[in-house]
């Protein structure tokens, strides 16, 4: 992208970067508000994990629900948050009313079984789940059950957004380090 593009906001990649930067910084800010300085390695690890999730979720929310991969990412994050919420609450109160598992007296881990919007249907086509395409399907979120043609579409969009994300993050880190 050349910086000399005058209406730079018309460039779709530029738009994506803008929005992603906006949301990502906001998410980082939220993180920082909550936890100040990590003390030990465990906290550092958890924090980095959260930052990573923030990055992916920010990117997926920029794209919205137009793409299968963004939907899958958002679904995973949402599910994870719900599960974690249940985990926390169950540890405190041992309440399992929200979970759909019936005999969950211990309530140690109450996993909410929600309907996966992209269920893996392995019985459809075994060829799909072998070889290189399988690797690609594992890499691109939410691409496990689509046909090859749509898989290519999703991969292209995913690569585009991922590259934009990496660029923004790179710039952020550089900004923090050099200035």
């Amino acid at each position: 992208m050349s910086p000399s593009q005058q209406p730079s906001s018309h460039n779709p990649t530029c738009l994506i970067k803008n929005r992603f930067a906006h949301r990502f910084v906001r998410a980082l800010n939220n993180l920082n508000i909550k936890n100040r300085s990590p003390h030990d390695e465990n906290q550092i690890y958890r924090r980095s994990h959260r930052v990573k999730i923030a990055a992916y979720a920010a990117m997926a929310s920029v794209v919205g629900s137009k793409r299968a991969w963004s939907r899958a990412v958002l679904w995973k994050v949402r599910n994870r948050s719900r599960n974690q919420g249940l985990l926390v609450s169950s540890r405190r109160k041992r309440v399992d009313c929200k979970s759909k598992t019936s005999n969950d007296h211990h309530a140690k881990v109450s996993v909410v079984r929600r309907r996966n919007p992209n269920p893996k249907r392995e019985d459809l086509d075994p060829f799909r789940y072998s070889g290189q395409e399988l690797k690609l399907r594992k890499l691109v979120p939410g691409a496990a059950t689509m046909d090859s043609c749509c898989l290519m579409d999703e991969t292209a969009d995913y690569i585009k957004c991922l590259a934009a994300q990496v660029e923004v993050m790179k710039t952020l880190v550089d900004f923090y380090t050099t200035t």
Partner: protein
Amino acid sequence: MNGASPECHNNIPGNTTGGGGGEVSVFERQQARMKWQQQQQMLFNGNDHQVPNMLSAMQPSGLIGNFAIKPDPGIENGWPDFSYGDQLGYGSGFDHMNQNTHSRMTSFRPPLMADQTILQKNSSSASLSPKKRKAHENQKLKVVSEENGVKEKELKGCSDGDSTETSSKEKPKLTEAKKQEYIHVRARRGQATDSHSLAERVRREKISERMKYLQDLVPGCNKITGKAGMLDEIINYVQSLQRQVEMFVSGEVSAVGYSSEMANSTYLQLNSLLEMGTNPIDMVLRSIGSPVSIPETFVVSSCFNQIQPTVTWDADLQNLYRMELQHDTSTIPFQTQKFTGSYEGSNLKMEM
């Protein structure tokens, strides 16, 4: 030209022409068809990119194979329903073919209406002039092959408007064709016209088209041809991008963690600029202020050793993050959080 093909015997009673050598008559018929199509092309000015394909779709043996008797009753069923205009051809193949033929035929309106009425009335073919009969046959042949090709390609989900190759696309009256979700494919010369192989070919072409697009996206893939190599490259690229994300995440954790108030102010400034409704990039480009002073603990981080300082800056992004410190508006109305972290178990509010 001798006259009707053997299949036409059902529909045009009384038209017993001595269609002797099947191949010869078919070939002649195809020639006549080509001429007819050329006429049509002249009529409709070649907007249809399909037409060259049509012209080249002459393969005697291939086309013969599709001339089963089966579609003819379908045609007969189809003809009488000709007057409707708004039925989506979702149901039977015949309906679809009918509609398809409708679209096809109305695009070549003048000679075909006559044929249609003639067929409907089931009059003897003796009333058909040779030219009309030829045109009718040719049209039917086209219908047959097309119907066969189309029937098997009910790709409802994946079809796009641009993949329909009907000539009626640009005709505003023929909106039925646009509503179609079938892929219309014509067999090309020298290629098998089996419906399965046609569908396969469509699918392969789609995939190769996307591969080309991916080749542009993934850097350094110009020399690689072939799906397998490309897939490998794509996989490597995606993996490397994800690894880079992880790397930067750990960098940011150290960076941002050590100066949370800096992050706050940065965020506020960024937020204020973006929420003022101005074009963010241009705005920030002009607001290059003194760089924010960052505690030294920033720089000391093991991760940063990995990150090369010689990065290629995008000027717009670079300036995006240099914000004026004086530009401090503390009371910024925070809009509804589009993304609240799920880190403490709160619900995510996503903007969809």
